[in-house]
């Protein structure tokens, strides 16, 4: 079971590494040929701007690739022509998030406090932290 879990973790991390590696390679071509096609605001921007948006390109490269392809095909690019935000929708999401946090946080933190190990006097703490806080002996 442990081995299976380790393999699963390694698989997920390998996938993420490949995803971001591909994103970095895509980013080079995107900066070179694609970015001007999808956003005219890039004209005249500096190198620091390009550096700042590169991590995002590595994360969102599939979305940008679709937009680049649409621009190359001469299709409509505007995601939201009016460029508006639904304040009501956002307020509803805010409300849901806070209701969830109001229940989940006191519950999980309460359990953590209730079940925390009680260290014995003059003994290092048990478990996972003992190594990091034990006195250094010379």
């Amino acid at each position, binding site marked *: 079971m442990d081995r299976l879990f380790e393999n699963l973790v*390694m698989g997920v991390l390998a996938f993420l590494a490949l995803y971001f590696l591909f994103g970095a390679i895509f980013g080079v071509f995107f900066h070179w040929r694609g970015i001007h096609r999808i956003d005219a605001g890039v004209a005249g921007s*500096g190198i620091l701007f390009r550096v700042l948006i590169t991590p995002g390109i590595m*994360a969102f490269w599939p979305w940008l690739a679709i937009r680049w392809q649409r621009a190359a095909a001469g299709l409509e690019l505007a995601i939201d022509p009016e460029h508006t935000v639904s304040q009501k*929708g956002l307020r509803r999401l805010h409300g849901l998030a*806070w209701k969830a946090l109001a229940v989940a946080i006191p519950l999980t933190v309460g359990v*953590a406090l209730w079940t*925390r190990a009680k260290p014995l006097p003059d003994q290092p703490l048990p478990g996972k932290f003992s190594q990091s806080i034990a006195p250094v002996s010379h």
Partner: protein
Amino acid sequence: MSLSYRAVDWNRQKRFYDLTLAAFVVLACTTFAVVSWLVSPNFSAETIIIRTCAVVALSLLHIILCLGPLARLAPRFLPLLYNRRHLGVTMFFLGLIHASLALFQFHGLGDANPLVSLFTAYSRDFRAWGPGAAGWGQIPFEPFGAAALAILFVMAATSHDFWLRNLGASFWKSMHLGVYVAYGLLLVHVAYGVFQSEPSIAYPVLLGVGFAVVSTVHWLAAAKEKALDQQRHRAEREGLVDVCAPAEVSEGRGKVVLVAGQRIALFRHQGRLFATSNVCRHQGGPVGEGRIIDGCITCPWHGWNYQPEDGCSPPPFKEILSTYETRVVAGRVWVSPKPNSLGTRCEGAVVV
């Protein structure tokens, strides 16, 4: 506002904001590190740096979470909202330093891949039930921190306006609500991490106070917003809705009114009343809480400008807010619930 992207649109306010932020980070880090060293002289330098970055990052996160609702409750907090993204990116980098050093100190010197070890080391020892079961307090806490850092990375990486435009404002704003998920994950990370290793009650008390403050300001702001949404207007006439008395809108100032369930910004400029959409085209800021500066409606969040007569940004910018017909009749302001077509010029209602 700018026609072409820049890394940072520096101005005097942003410089002051960032200098203040840098001073706060340096002061907070130094204070916590010195106090930690005095209280626990056995701690190694790495441990003190790991804990310092964590505490300062979490403090910044609490401040960040309070800014939005505080700005809704009192306009004096609006300047703090102006460059909140730099606060967020700073908080992410402090978290990244914390995570990188912790990864090296606790997982980097073994024979397993440190990143694999991060997710498997404690879970290998943890048994919730059965023989050799550990207490629930021994739940592996590091994956919660890693998940929070991943969310904060996505937010920091997409904090530039380039992403706002290219991901779409609605998706961008919704994605950045992920900060609440990250906050929840970080509190769990702390509760099953430092609470288990530190017998002191100080950490739970500080975290509890922080959560109570953040929750309270959010609930207060939500109550204020709800009250606005429950406004009832008294009359309709020729398709227009009675919203307020003219005196309720001061010269050069705005007021948010509810018309047929939607929020509309009402402004008084040079003795005339103009109505526009309350949603800024930049980040959806509440335009009606802004004011008129140099003849333009100015969004209180990031200073985007619109002309009150037609809702258009001044040339060469191209953003447009919807405008609404207004009239002043029988000592009341009347607003049409139907927007004019974009860019329509309105004369405004003369305030007698």
